[in-house]
């Protein structure tokens, strides 16, 4: 994926359009608000956010590959780096730090010190278990699955719950090889 760290070629990749950050943050807030009303249970809201994220990620990956002009991806370390440096930058205009690698290189953390999703947010007493940014986990999981990496993604540190940073833990479960989809006698 090294090529992607270079700025993309404007002749081949579409321009990156920007949207007002406040509009984005408040729109996301309105969605979470609506889910809280619709589902009532906090755990259910976390799950819905993850599912919504998954569906976004599954589409976003092609957009990402097109804009970053990425052609190849081989190992998880490089993938994590590209997500942190290119992906977060492109879609949230922040960069994450990759840290805490497990010994087998199957698990790492993305650390966000700044997160535009929570700009105006304070968790009230009634929402203590809410993983407000859980949609990000879903996006990562959905996007990675499309490039053949089945992962488990969750927040382990959350500034809204009093931690000093946001920490997203990504675990690579398996890399799915491409298989021939037809049977011989079909």
């Amino acid at each position, binding site marked *: 994926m090294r090529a992607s760290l270079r700025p993309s070629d404007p002749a081949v990749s579409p321009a990156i359009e920007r949207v007002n950050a406040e509009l984005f943050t408040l729109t996301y807030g309105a969605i979470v608000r609506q889910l809280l009303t619709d589902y009532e249970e906090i755990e259910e809201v976390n799950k819905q956010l993850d599912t919504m994220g998954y569906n976004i990620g599954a589409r976003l990956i092609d957009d990402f590959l097109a804009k970053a002009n990425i052609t190849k991806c*081989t190992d998880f370390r490089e993938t994590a780096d590209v997500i942190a440096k290119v992906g977060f930058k492109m879609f949230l205009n922040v960069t994450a730090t990759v840290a805490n690698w497990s010994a087998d290189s199957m698990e790492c953390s993305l650390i966000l010190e700044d997160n535009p999703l929570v700009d105006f947010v304070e968790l009230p007493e009634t929402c203590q278990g809410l993983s407000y940014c859980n949609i990000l986990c879903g996006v990562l999981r959905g996007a990675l699955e499309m490039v053949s990496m089945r992962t488990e993604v969750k927040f382990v540190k959350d500034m809204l719950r009093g931690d000093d940073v946001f920490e997203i833990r990504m675990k690579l479960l398996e890399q799915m090889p491409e298989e021939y989809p037809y049977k011989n006698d079909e």
Partner: protein
Amino acid sequence: MAALAPTSRMRCMYIFNRNGVCLHYHVWMRPHTTLSQQQDQKLMFGLLFSLKSFTAKMDPVGGNKGNLGMPSLPGQGCSFHSFRTNTYKLSFMESPSGIKLILVTDPRMGDLREALRFIYNNIYVEYVVKNPLYTLGQPFKCELFNSTLDQYVKTLQ
């Protein structure tokens, strides 16, 4: 059939996803077809799949071990980008997300790697993937995609 000049070098285009579903089949000029559309697409996917596996297998320098036809991880090994016969040229591109673009043209056509990249980046992603009402993994019929593609291929030499 799209309106292109009779001298156009374009023949047809296929788009497959990672599961072998033909998302789109576009014909400019193909007077001679012998198979049903479904069989034609299945064989095309099979050809690419085998050729990709075989080219990676033949790599004299790098290359992955394992048996011919064994499933390989995406991004593993090398791949081909075109082949040419005396009557046509087939150009191929695969994105890391497993989207495969195949462009069949006149054999005198030059290198189309950048053109395929352009079609994926600026036409497929923009008009198909970003359409919120398009269901992922389903074949698509999209007017804007077709007209933009027709317009773009006119510029190819």
